[in-house]
C-alpha cells in the first residue's frame, strides 16, 4: 500500500494545474454562457499531448498512466467540465477502444492524428429507443462484399459536431443481446452520414452532442473495429475507462464547488460575522470535504485497477461513477446553498457547476443502471443471475 504520487505524477499535477489555470479556467464561463465548443481549449490541450494522454509515445501520445490520467481529468473537471468531458470521450471512450482493438494500420492512421487534435473522436452508441439497453439497438450494418452498409440513427453522440471520427455501434446480426453488435470507425465526411440536431442541455453547454443519421453509409470492411459481434464488449470496456475519467471530473468539479463555497463562507457576513462561523455552514463544508476525500480514493483505486488491467474494474468503475456523480451533485447543491441568492446568479461559477454536474448521474450509464450492475455482481456468486 502506497498512497503517494510518484515523482512523475507530482510533476504532472503541477503541469495540469498550470495548464488549467491558464488555458481552461478563464474560458469556462464563456464556454457555458455562449454554448461554445471548447475548440481553443482542445487546441491548447493537443499542444501538451493531452489529446493522446494515454496513447503510447509511438502514436505521439503522452503515455500517461491511468492515475495520471485521472489527475488530468480531475484538474480539467475542476476548471471546466465541458472541456473535460469532451476530452474524456475523445481519449477514454474512442481512443482507448482503438488502442485496444484496432489493427496496427488503424492505430497508425488514427492515433497520431487524434493525439495532434486533427481528428476528434465521437462516440455513437445511444439511440432514441436504446440508452442502457444495448439489445434494443436498431442501427444496422449489412455486409456486402468488402463493405458494410449502415442505416439508422444515433442520439446524444458526444463530439459529433466537432469531431472527424465516429465510433459507431451497429447491429451486424440478429443474435440476442449484445452479441450481434459490431463497432465501426466511420469518417464524418463519408457520404450518407449526416450530423444533425445539437442537443440543448441544462449544463455542460460547451459539449457538442448531436443526433447522427446513417443513410446507406458505405463503410469499407477494414473500418470494422475488432471482430464482428465484438462491438458490445468493446463498448463496455471503453465505458469502464471513461467512467474512471468521468468520476475524476466529478471529483474535480466537486473540489471547485467546495473551494467556491468555502471562499464565499469566509467572505460573506451575516449577523455580525462571516457565515463560516455558523454551524449549519460548517456542517455543509465538513460533509462536502469528507465526501471529496472519499471520492478521491475511489477514483485513484479505480484508476489503479485500470492500470493493472484488473477485471474487478468493471464493477469498481460502476461503483466509483455512482458514488462520485451523486456525491458531486450533493456537494454542488450544498455549496450553492452556502452562496444563498448569489449562487443562483450566472455570475458565480457555482451556478454553472451545479447545472454541469446534474448530467453526471445520467451520462454513461444512469445511477439506476449502475446500481443494477453492482447488485448483479454482488448476487452472482450466490447463484442468482440478475436481468435488468
Amino acid at each position, binding site marked *: 500500500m502506497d498512497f503517494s504520487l510518484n515523482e512523475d505524477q507530482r510533476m504532472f499535477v503541477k503541469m495540469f494545474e498550470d495548464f488549467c489555470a491558464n488555458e481552461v479556467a478563464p474560458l469556462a464561463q464563456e464556454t457555458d454562457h455562449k454554448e461554445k465548443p471548447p475548440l481553443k481549449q482542445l487546441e491548447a490541450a493537443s499542444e501538451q499531448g493531452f489529446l493522446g494522454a494515454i496513447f503510447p509515445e509511438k502514436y505521439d501520445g503522452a503515455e500517461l498512466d491511468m492515475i495520471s490520467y485521472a489527475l488530468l481529468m480531475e484538474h480539467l473537471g475542476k476548471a471546466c467540465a465541458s472541456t473535460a468531458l469532451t476530452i474524456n470521450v475523445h481519449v477514454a471512450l474512442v481512443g482507448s477502444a482503438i488502442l485496444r482493438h484496432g489493427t496496427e494500420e488503424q492505430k497508425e492512421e488514427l492515433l497520431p492524428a487524434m493525439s495532434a487534435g486533427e481528428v476528434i473522436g465521437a462516440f455513437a452508441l445511444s439511440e432514441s429507443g436504446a440508452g442502457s439497453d444495448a439489445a434494443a439497438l436498431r442501427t444496422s450494418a449489412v455486409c456486402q462484399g468488402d463493405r458494410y452498409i449502415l442505416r439508422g440513427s444515433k442520439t446524444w453522440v458526444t463530439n459529433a459536431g466537432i469531431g472527424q471520427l465516429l465510433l459507431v455501434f451497429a447491429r451486424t446480426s440478429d443474435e440476442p443481446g449484445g452479441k450481434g453488435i459490431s463497432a465501426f470507425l466511420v469518417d464524418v465526411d463519408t457520404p450518407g452520414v449526416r450530423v444533425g440536431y445539437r*442537443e440543448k442541455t441544462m449544463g455542460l453547454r460547451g459539449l457538442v452532442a448531436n443526433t447522427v443519421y446513417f443513410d446507406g453509409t458505405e463503410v469499407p470492411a477494414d473500418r470494422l473495429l475488432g471482430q464482428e459481434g465484438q462491438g458490445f464488449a468493446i463498448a463496455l470496456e471503453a465505458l469502464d475507462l471513461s467512467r474512471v475519467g468521468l468520476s475524476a471530473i466529478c471529483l474535480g468539479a466537486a473540489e471547485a464547488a467546495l473551494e467556491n463555497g468555502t471562499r464565499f463562507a469566509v467572505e460573506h457576513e451575516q449577523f455580525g460575522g462571516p457565515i463560516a462561523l*455558523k454551524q449549519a455552514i460548517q456542517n455543509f463544508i465538513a460533509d462536502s470535504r469528507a465526501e471529496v476525500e472519499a471520492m478521491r480514493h475511489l477514483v485513484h483505486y479505480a484508476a489503479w485497477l485500470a492500470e493493472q488491467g484488473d477485471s474487478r474494474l468493471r464493477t469498481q468503475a460502476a461503483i466509483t461513477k455512482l458514488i462520485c456523480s451523486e456525491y458531486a451533485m450533493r456537494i454542488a447543491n450544498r455549496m450553492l446553498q452556502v452562496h444563498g441568492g448569489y449562487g443562483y446568479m450566472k455570475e458565480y461559477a457555482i451556478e454553472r457547476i451545479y447545472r454541469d454536474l446534474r448530467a453526471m448521474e445520467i451520462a454513461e450509464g444512469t445511477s439506476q443502471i449502475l446500481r443494477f450492475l453492482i447488485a448483479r455482481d454482488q448476487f452472482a456468486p450466490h447463484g442468482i443471475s440478475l436481468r435488468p
Partner: protein
Amino acid sequence: MDFTLPKEYELLRRMIRDFARQEVAPLAKRIDIEEEVPREIIRKAAELGMMGVPFPQEYGGMGAGELGYCILMEEIGRVCTSTATVIGAHTGIGAMAIYLDGTPEQKKKYLTPLARGEKIAAFALTEANAGSDAAAIRTRAVRDGDDFILTGSKMFITNGPIADIVSVMAVTDPSLGPRGGITAFIVEMDWKGCSVGKVEDKMGIRGSGTSELVFDEVRVPKENILGQFGAGFVTFMKTLDVGRVSLGAACLGGAQAALERSIQWAKARSQFGKAIVHNQSIQWMIANMATEIEALRSLVYRTAWMVDTGQPFTRYAAMCKLYGSEVASRCISQAVQIYGALGYSRDLEIERMFRDARIAEIFEGTNEIQRIVIASDIMRQEGVRISP
C-alpha cells in the same frame, strides 16, 4: 375534522387550472427563453381576480383568503414557476405588506390598484449584506420636515424591473437596531430618485425579473409610512410569514407536475423490453414522490386554514417553505433521472423545472433561516431564546 374543500374553492381551482393550462402553460418555454412573463398574461390573470386573490373584495381583491391564494399558487406553480414568482412577489409579499399593516387610506390608494392587477408590487428588504439579517440594513430614511429622504439600494428584488409600488425597509434610527430602528415605507417607483439597477442573470425563473432597486434621495411623505414608525421589522416578519405559505403551495404545484410527468414517461419509455415503470427503482421514486407530495399538501392547506382562521402560524409557514422547496427539488430531480438524458435536454420542460425549482430553497429566507425560525419558535415555548 373535515378535510373537504368547500365547493366554491373546487370551482375556483378548476377555473384557475383551466387558465393555467390554456393560457400560461403554452407560453412557459417562451417565458424562460425570452426572460419575460408577457404583460398579456398578467392582464388576463388580473381580469379574473388572480392578482389579488387573498385580499377583500372591497379593495378590489377576490376575497378568497389564503386558501384561495394557495390554490392559485399551486395551479400556476404546476405550469410555470416564473409566472408564479411574479404573482407571488406581487401578491404574497409586495401587496401583502400593505394589506397587513396599511391604513384604510393606504389600502384604498395602493392596495386596490394592486389587487386589481393594474399596478405591480414588489417587496424590498434584501441588501448586499443584509438578507435575513435585518440589523445589517444600510438603506436610510432621514426625516425632513413632514417627509423622509430615502437613500440606499436593495438587491435581488423580485419584480424589481416591473414594479410600480414597492414596500421598502429602511433604517430610521441606527441607534435602535432592528427593534425600533427600522421603518417600512410605501414607495412609488416613478418618484424622483427611484431607479432600477442591475438586472440579474439567473439559473432559473428567468421570466421573473430580479434586480437592484436604487433610491437616491427619494422624498417619501410621512403618509407612506407602513405600519408603526420604527416597527418595520414586525411588518416584514409578518409579511414574509404569509408569503411562505403560498410559496410552499407553488412548490407543491411544481412537485405535482414533476410526478405527473414522471408517471407518463415511466409508462411510455421502454427499456429491456418493458416499460421502465416495471422497475422497482422507478416505482420507489414514484411512491416516494407521491408520499412527500401528500405530506406537503396537508401541511400547506392546513397552514392556509390557520392563516384564514386567525391562528398563530409562523412556525408552520416556515415549514411550508422549507419542506415545500425541498420536496419540489427532490421530486423534480427524480423526474430528471426518470427522463434520463431527455431530462437534461432543454427541449423538454423538466429541465426548466429543475432550474426553476432550485430558487425556492433560497429566496424569501434561505432554508437555513427557516430552520432557525422553526427552532426558535419551538424553543421559545421552552423558555429558550435562540439568536441566529
